[in-house]
């Protein structure tokens, strides 16, 4: 260690997610064009950017739901992009929360939170249930353990999804637009759970369109556009006084709801997300 050329991975236990020169293409479409960044222990990183800029793809490459075409990702200094990596074990260290909740509809809220504890972590069922219950309490749904997802509102489902992820006792949490599919009056409950998590010291990578949340909770904001990180830094800088024209244009659009082009973006967005919860066929 001479200090001049940092090694890959750093080996520092605080560098929980290390991303080096990450590229991802879908066919001819290059969605990520070289992303390099590190998320530190206890850090809350909010990823913002226009629809289609590759935010979800970046998050999904971190836990290998998408296979990167080039570049390396290290989780807790272990390379998840290594073909021989124990991906399933590394995934248990990061909880993921999806825009469309993806709760298991054939299981109750409590069972959603215990199944992976029992099957993957091999915990005994009583222990698993106790921890699941504690996590449901944490998200304010301690009394809904017996309910099936279909019997709950979107906001409640998303909070169960957070409890499910927490039940694996992860080192870090990945959120992909956790509030975008919710009715406006239900967004607050979910955001407040996330705020509590952040204050509790959880490492979080959050793709979001909630600028107020990013400004308040994030330690660092990453603005992405066209598959690259255009600008990153503390929210006061990136959202408060952005230096790049692209960032300014984007922020003007999301912060001013009367902007004429808002509709275009919504439509493109709706089109690309229509497939998320539809059958795979």
């Amino acid at each position, binding site marked *: 260690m001479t200090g001049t050329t940092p090694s890959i991975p750093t080996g520092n236990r605080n560098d929980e997610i290390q991303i080096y020169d990450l590229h991802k293409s879908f066919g001819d479409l290059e969605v990520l064009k070289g992303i390099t960044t590190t998320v530190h222990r206890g850090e809350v990183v909010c990823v913002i950017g226009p629809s289609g800029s590759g935010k979800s793809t970046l998050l999904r490459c971190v836990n290998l739901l998408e296979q990167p075409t080039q570049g390396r990702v290290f989780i807790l200094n272990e390379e998840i992009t290594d073909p021989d990596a124990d991906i*399933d074990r590394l995934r248990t260290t990061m909880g*993921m929360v*999806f825009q469309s909740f*993806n709760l298991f509809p054939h299981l109750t809220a409590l069972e959603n939170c215990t199944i992976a504890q029992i099957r993957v972590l091999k915990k005994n069922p009583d222990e698993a249930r106790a921890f699941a219950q504690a996590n449901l309490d944490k998200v304010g749904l301690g009394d809904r353990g017996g309910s099936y997802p279909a019997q709950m509102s979107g906001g409640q489902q998303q909070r169960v*999804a957070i409890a499910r992820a927490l039940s694996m006792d992860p080192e870090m949490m990945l959120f992909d637009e956790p509030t975008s599919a919710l009715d406006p009056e239900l967004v607050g409950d979910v955001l407040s759970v996330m705020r509590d998590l952040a204050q509790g010291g959880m490492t979080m990578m959050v793709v979001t369109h909630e600028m107020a949340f990013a400004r308040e909770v994030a330690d660092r904001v990453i603005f992405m556009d066209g598959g690259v990180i255009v600008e990153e830094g503390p929210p006061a800088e990136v959202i408060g006084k952005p230096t790049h024209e692209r960032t300014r244009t984007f922020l003007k659009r999301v912060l001013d709801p009367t902007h004429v082009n808002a509709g275009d973006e919504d439509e493109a967005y709706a089109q690309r997300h229509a497939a998320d919860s539809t*059958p*795979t066929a």
Partner: protein
Amino acid sequence: MSDTTSQVAPRQAKRLSPRKRAQRTRVIQYGVLVVLVVVAALTIDGRQVQQVFLRPDLVLKTLGPELGAAFLNTIIYTAGAFVLGLAFGTVLALMKLSQVAPYRWLATIYTEFFRGVPAIIVLLAFSLMGVAFPGFSFPFDPYGTVWVALGIVTAAYMSETIRAGIQAVPKGQIEAARSLGMSPGMSMQRIVLPQAFRIVTPPLTNELVLLTKDSSLVYVLGLFASGYELTKFGRNLANTYANITPLVVAGFCYLIITLPLTYLVRRMEAKQRKATR
């Protein structure tokens, strides 16, 4: 054509409104029905019909412990074939979705073959296994032979249904399972398959109804009396008395099995429709 009529239309003296026209077709339909009933009543001799299809003394002779045994055999043949078909059909469905191309080919060839060949030929072929391979016999003969033969045929149909059910489970479900550290196999077993089977319960129950009726093909096998199912039993009696009544009774026995099942399917489908709305 619509062009010419619209040109001609104004010249016609009067055109019927759609409502009037619907009314007139309904009147015609009722008229035809009345004529048919009258003709039937005049030509058909009710007593003779009863003598041929439902002679009371033969109904009584048919009802009895042997009918009960045949009824039970029908259920045993069907249930065994269904269970085998379900297990094998699931394996075939997974093969069809496999990353390994040869598995997909094998499963497709299998399905196309057994859906295209009459079930009765498969059944006959299996009944001759003992002749083809001397000393070979299925366990629980004749049940084993029937279970395997019908199970193999029905698996071909079921595999298509189950594959569709698996694909109807949103891909977000697999992603959520994998993100929790579940392996592909565990995600399939614990998350996808339970949902898939829920989706395909109605069509699979329909398959069970078809299978119940197909179990009647067993009559082609040279069975001992203890192996008779409803059709074979009814047919023997019908031959003995030179009367159709025993077959009619056997037919009603099938309805006792199939009608509740079809009713169940309708209820489940209605419930699913409500749930997905």
